[in-house]
């Protein structure tokens, strides 16, 4: 039963991708229906996994296919963490596809688009369900490829293509880190099962485990767009908006958090590892938030906000709050997907992403305004939306475990979040006068009727923002039951029940956070009145400069690599005899090495 469901979760999107690709653009209606149906199938199976009645034991392996002595078995494991992330990927994926039906109507080559989105959903589920390191890596790369191909979907736009390549290169830096870690694990462990690594990590020499741990951390930083490798995410906003909602807000960027959480019990003893995670997370919270405060492109604000919110989750993992940070992940996935889809609807109607050219949309687009407002409230962490609970739980954890540094960062981050959320909401929906930017003035749409395929996902996600924290006990219970190695970092259903109640609402840290949030809004109100505030513009200049430094450093690394390639290119003479000499010398060297080491 569970095995069948797991197979449906992975194979339904892949099969759908193949069919959609085969149907192509000749029959758009069939193609759209197929794409949505494949998503619905997978989502239903994923939700059913949560409720599937099975006496869960410590070993949750539901599928095991032998792959020879070196690789071990391809196993699929339906434990709490995997089911949690599969549900997010399939449900939000389905809503994004549904939204695309209206949003992408009339665009060319939609067969490719839907096929890639479905391929991504299946790969993401396979990534989290995989119990074997090598297959985890395989699907990790598959998601990176889908991300690249979808960012560059408008492949006649040079900006989109270069953004796609940038995303691919930066995430590959992390992919190399992951590969190095996995190869080291293969050398020191009997097989490549994730459980083996968790079990045997104490027997691996500490220096080797350190390399492994930091390799995985590099992978997580690149994938989850953390400082200093966050530079690909803002550029990735060239992707169609439903793709941004699905891949660059709700799912793929969470793979890094998943990786850290999955291997936390093995790597936590490595000296400096948890501290590095916390530092990276804190820097991302602050820098991402700072950049979001001054960006004028609506999607870029959301992208920087994603960097900042992902920083919360990363820092949360470093704190050892695995349940809290995964709860944050769920909440963020829902409200950020909602905000992105709302932004998509606005962009669809106005044809611009510049917030300075928006404003006064509330009366024109109330059906988008209300969901956006709900999402913004959750992003700010206003009670009692899901963003409130997840943020408060994390802050509470930091306070309880006496981590004053992270507590301050988290609360400060809440203030920054409030500032840019208030600014964004105001500029898009309420600002009275739109400034003319560039030569053309955008025209306000007439009161329009959005197609049902765009409206329904917004409404469903808005409902999700309000209620998604309710079934959290079930998740807590499931995770505690199925993750024996993580048990000490998780909480029981009773504890979750207790936390999601008046205890958190009435705690001191909640009061502090809400005060800082209110201060953030007030600060924005104060500075929006005085147009050119010196202090604020100086902060903005600092944020821009730091972003430019990161981008320039990345550019120099790319140029350097190209220079190295053009030098080493000379080794390829094209002369057959020289190649044979090279092969012969390498053989002699290898044989000599083998004899010498014997």
């Amino acid at each position, binding site marked *: 039963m569970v095995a069948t469901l797991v197979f449906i979760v992975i194979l339904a999107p892949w099969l759908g991708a193949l069919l959609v690709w085969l149907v192509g653009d000749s029959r758009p209606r069939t193609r759209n229906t197929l794409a949505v149906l494949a998503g619905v199938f997978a989502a239903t199976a994923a939700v059913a996994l949560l409720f599937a009645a099975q006496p869960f034991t410590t070993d949750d392996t539901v599928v095991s296919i032998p792959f020879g002595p070196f690789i071990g078995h391809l196993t699929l494991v339906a434990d709490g963490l995997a089911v949690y992330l599969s549900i997010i990927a399939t449900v939000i994926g389905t809503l994004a596809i549904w939204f695309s039906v209206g949003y992408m109507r009339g665009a060319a080559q939609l067969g490719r688009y839907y096929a890639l989105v479905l391929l991504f959903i299946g790969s993401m589920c396979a990534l989290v369900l995989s119990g074997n390191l090598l297959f985890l890596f395989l699907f990790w790369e598959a998601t990176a490829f889908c991300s690249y191909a979808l960012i560059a979907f408008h492949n006649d736009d040079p900006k989109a293509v270069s953004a796609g390549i940038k995303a691919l290169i930066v995430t590959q830096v992390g992919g190399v880190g992951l590969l190095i870690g996995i190869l080291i694990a293969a050398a020191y462990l009997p097989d490549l099962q994730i459980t083996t690594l968790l079990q045997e990590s104490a027997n691996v020499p500490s220096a080797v485990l350190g390399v492994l741990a930091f390799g995985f951390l590099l992978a997580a930083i690149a994938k989850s767009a953390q400082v200093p490798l966050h530079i690909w995410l803002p550029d990735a906003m060239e992707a169609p908006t439903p793709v941004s909602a699905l891949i660059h807000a709700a799912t793929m960027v969470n793979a890094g958090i998943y990786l850290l959480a999955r291997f936390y019990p093995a790597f936590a003893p490595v000296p400096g590892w948890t501290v590095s995670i916390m530092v990276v997370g804190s820097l991302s919270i602050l820098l991402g938030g700072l950049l979001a405060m001054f960006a004028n492109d609506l999607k870029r604000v959301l992208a920087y906000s994603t960097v900042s919110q992902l920083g919360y989750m990363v820092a949360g993992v470093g704190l050892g709050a695995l349940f809290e940070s995964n709860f944050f992940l769920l909440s963020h996935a829902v409200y950020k997907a909602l905000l992105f889809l709302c932004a998509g609807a606005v962009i669809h109607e106005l044809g611009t992403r510049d917030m300075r050219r928006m404003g006064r949309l509330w009366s024109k687009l109330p059906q988008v305004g209300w969901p956006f407002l709900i999402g913004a409230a959750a992003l700010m962490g206003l009670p009692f939306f899901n963003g409130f609970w997840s943020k408060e739980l994390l802050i509470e954890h930091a306070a309880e475990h006496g981590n004053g540094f992270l507590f301050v960062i988290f609360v400060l981050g809440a203030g920054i979040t409030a500032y840019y959320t208030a600014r964004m909401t105001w500029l898009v929906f309420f600002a009275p006068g739109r400034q003319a930017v560039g030569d053309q003035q955008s025209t306000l749409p007439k009161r329009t009727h959005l197609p049902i395929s765009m409206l329904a996902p917004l409404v469903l996600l808005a409902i999700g923002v309000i209620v998604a924290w309710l079934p959290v006990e079930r998740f807590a219970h499931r995770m505690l039951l199925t993750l024996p190695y993580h048990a000490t970092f998780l909480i029981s259903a009773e504890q979750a029940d207790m936390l999601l109640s008046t205890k958190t609402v009435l705690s001191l840290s909640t009061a502090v956070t809400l005060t800082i949030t209110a201060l953030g809004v007030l600060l924005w109100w104060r500075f929006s009145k005085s147009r050119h505030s010196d202090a604020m513009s100086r902060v903005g200049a600092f944020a821009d400069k730091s972003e430019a430094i990161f981008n320039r450093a990345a550019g120099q690394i790319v140029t350097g690599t190209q220079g190295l390639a053009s030098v080493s290119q000379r080794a390829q003479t*094209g002369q*057959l*005899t020289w190649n044979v000499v090279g092969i*012969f010398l390498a053989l002699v060297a290898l044989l000599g090495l083998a004899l010498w080491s014997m």
Partner: protein
Amino acid sequence: MNSFQVLLLGVIALLGIGLYGVLINRHLIKVVIALQILVKAALLAVIVAGRFTGRVSLAESMGLTIIVIDTIVAVLALALVVQIKQRANNLDSAELAQLKH
């Protein structure tokens, strides 16, 4: 000198002849022939190793695999040579290297 040493000598001799042939020849058909001699050296080495370690059946199956792959390589290489002859009307590897640019 026992039979094992004789066979080993044969392997080394074939290896040397093949390598020499690949190194000094620029005519592509001669290179293919030299490559074939090299592969035969490897084949003989596998069989000798099988006899030496007593795992004859493993060596035999490996040997058969090598023969099959070797044949495919030879066929493909000769097909390429024919194509090159038709297109470039030249079989000198050093001169063909200029095609790179």
